[in-house]
């Protein structure tokens, strides 16, 4: 069953005068099935964040459709969109986006509080989640008191706590050192094994090599995709690297 379906998505940024137009997405089509772990790869400026923002409903496409569990996001009313996003999607950002006025615990609760859940219900969900993520001891700390990796794990907990159908991650390892990156990627594999669907945007081959499928985006189109198949991480890494080399030489040609 498809969780996400993207049909002929196009996004044109125009500045206020309409003079300078930037075509961030030309034509993007792809599907994500339940339980998949998909990485979207591309160079900086290739349109990854734009794509993710549209998927998240934070931005409107110029044309095309995004279907989440068969529902057209474009049809959802502006005022219901936030609630829809909150209930169906989880986000992990490159710069964590934790609120500095909240403890980690309160940061994690935020989407549930907004959804009007009771404290008892929230608390019972928090326990197993934070244990798995290894941040049970840090819950009373404020974001500025913990490391980047710990912040990102809290952000993951915040994304997971609503039990979303799909996790969207925008360069989640971008601001992490290599050890924290490894830890986070293992965590993603772990939750993916538990059945969580993940769509991750990245420009790191290492991060992409841990996923199940890689979509290559360039100049606003998906021009290639790779399935892991039966490869292990290292082999998949190699395959992705090769594709990227091809991509560069293709550009040279």
């Amino acid at each position, binding site marked *: 069953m498809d969780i996400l379906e993207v049909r002929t998505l196009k996004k044109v940024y125009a500045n206020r005068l309409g003079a300078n137009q930037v075509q961030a997405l030309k034509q993007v089509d792809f599907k994500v099935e339940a339980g998949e772990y998909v990485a979207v790869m591309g160079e900086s400026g290739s349109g990854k964040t734009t794509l993710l923002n549209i998927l998240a409903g*934070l931005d409107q496409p110029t044309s095309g459709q995004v279907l989440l569990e068969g529902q057209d996001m474009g049809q959802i009313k502006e*005022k219901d*969109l*936030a609630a829809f996003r909150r209930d169906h999607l989880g*986000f992990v950002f490159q710069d964590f986006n934790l609120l*500095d*006025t909240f403890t980690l615990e309160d940061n994690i609760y935020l989407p549930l509080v*907004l959804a009007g859940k*009771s404290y008892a219900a929230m608390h019972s969900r928090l326990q197993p989640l934070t244990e798995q993520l290894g941040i049970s001891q840090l819950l009373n700390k404020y974001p500025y008191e913990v490391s980047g990796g710990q912040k990102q794990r809290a952000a993951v907990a915040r994304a997971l706590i609503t039990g979303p159908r799909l996790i969207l991650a925008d360069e989640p390892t971008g601001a992490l050192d290599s050890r924290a990156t490894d830890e986070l990627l293992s965590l993603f594999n772990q939750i993916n094994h538990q059945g969580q669907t993940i769509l991750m945007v990245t420009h790191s081959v290492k991060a992409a090599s841990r996923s199940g499928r890689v979509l290559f985006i360039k100049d606003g189109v998906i021009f290639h995709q790779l399935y892991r198949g039966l490869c292990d991480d290292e082999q998949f890494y190699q395959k992705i690297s090769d594709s990227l080399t091809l991509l560069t030489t293709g550009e040279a040609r």
Partner: protein
Amino acid sequence: MKTAFYPRLAVDSMKKNRQLYLPFILAASGMVLIFYILSYLAHSAFIRVLRGGSELSSIMNFGSIILAFFSAIFLFYTHSFLLRRRKTEFGLYNILGMDKRSLARILIWETLIMATVSLISGSLGGILLSKLAELILLRLVKSAVSFSLSIDLPALLNSVVVFMLIFALILLQSLLQIWRSNPIELLHSQATGEKPPRGNWVLALAGVLLLVTAYSIALSIKDPIAALFWFFLAVILVIAATYLLFIAGSVTACRQLQKNKRFYYQKQHFVSLSSMAYRMKRNGAGLASIAILCTMVLVMLSTTVCLYAGTEDILRTRFPRELSVSAKISQPLPADDSYWETLQQQLLIAPDQTQLSAQNLLSYQYAYMIGQVSGDQVRIAEEEDPVVPTSDLISVIILPQQDYNQISGSSLDLAPGQALLYANRLTYAADSLTINDAVTLQINQRLSTADSLAEVEIITEAAGYTPELVLVVSDYASLLTRLQQSLNDAQQSNLYLSWNYAFDLKGSDSAIAESQQLSYWQGKLDTLTAQSEGRLYSLSVNAVSEERSYYYSTYSGLLFMAALLALVFILATVLIMYYKQLSEGYEDQSRFAIMQKIGMTTQDIRQSINSQILTVFLLPLLAAGLHLAFAFPMLQKLLLLFGLSNHRLFVSVALLCFVLFTLFYALIYRVTSHVYYHIVSKNTKA
């Protein structure tokens, strides 16, 4: 080229930061403007010549001193805020290779530019508006006005010197700040991980305690002048308590509410409560300042408006009758009261020859003599002319019992030969008193205060130093005859009689209008004195109409000064509020962008922003209202000292001031919160 580098850099960066600098310069100009006006009025020749003009001048002088101190503190404080926001920029310059000496030069130029602009625009505005201010003031005083625009050099010099000093102080502080910091610190000064606000129970409780103490002092003060120390203590305690409660109390309250999980983890409380804690930690001091400024504005305006509006009431209390005439007559004394009755009739012939009638007549007479006391004997002095009495001379005043009873509303009943004694500025212990060996009085009663004699002019006005013996007797007429017979020639001039009338006039309007003029009475008195062939030793008149201008000039001066100071305080409130909104806007910008990504609807965000903003808006106003309410009884007693007993007037004026101020405050808030919304919505689609 090289020399113009720093000024240009200074101008550029000020332009870039005009959102910060423009309001500051405007506020500084406003303060220069008002300072100039106050010192101009203090010097103004038009005002000097008014009745009560010297009081007006000193009120204005006093106001300008207060303003100077306030401006210094306030500009200094807001500039430090400005500087904090600029530190990152300075850090960047520093890292890019600009040494501290160069930074200092930029700062010097910036301060110089700010000072020049504020001083020039402020004094120009002041010069232009000073005439308007003078006109308004003269109108308030109900005096004629003249039109000519002038520049008052001393006032100008005054303003320039005072504000140059203030700017020098500001510069010194900026230089010190730059000198003491290192570049990395400068670069990160705005972004350093802010510690979460912790509730401080001790400080919060101290705040509550201080407030309760201050309020109970304010409520228990009976006589504000006698308890001046307590009065000021209450004021200081209220100020301290306000700061404590806004800074520590509010955060503690937020934290306490956050501990209540049921309450805290609700959509409408969750974000607001945690942001509030931070907001109050950062802006508590600013909000407390706003609350105190609001209180001051309210207190100043309501009391002075009330005094001004109640001037007629005050005059009525002070001078129960429109006119009071006092006639003093020396030897030969008239044989009976008929002399006085004719005098009174002649007094009451109106300019148009109709007879005016005296209403609410209050009349009393007394005999006044100057003598020397030894033991229980008084001898009337033998000087030709009683000039200023020398140290061993005393005054003896004898009042008829009947008049005393009328004046004081008491029912004294003395037997002939008995007397009631009030000894002023001397102790008189003997049981009897003999005057000129002719009259002996048994001291039957003694007064310890002059309260019941308050109407007797000679006693109340005797701000002098002569010791006085006041005697009330029942057999006034026979006593006077005996005294007179005992006088030798040299003593004659040291005994005279005084007859006093106080009354309201009744008659045709024109007659009254004319007879309200003191000059009319002066003419009349001169005629009467001439007719008396030297017997009338002095005849004087006090008209309320004359006192009126004196009172009006004092109270309108107070009102005017209060209005100008209120203007300055409001200006300060606006500026604090503006900077508060500005800094909060920048802080909340990223926060709300995040919340939107997490799934907060724009509606939720709006709601949260509104509820926080409303709380922050209402808190200082509520505090000011509360302070005013508790200060009310004390202020009422203060006004009573001024002679204003019309409590209804005060209540309604205070309420009116509060309502008007609230409207004005709401307006300020609306305008400044636009700044906030504008900044916050830059990153959000809120």
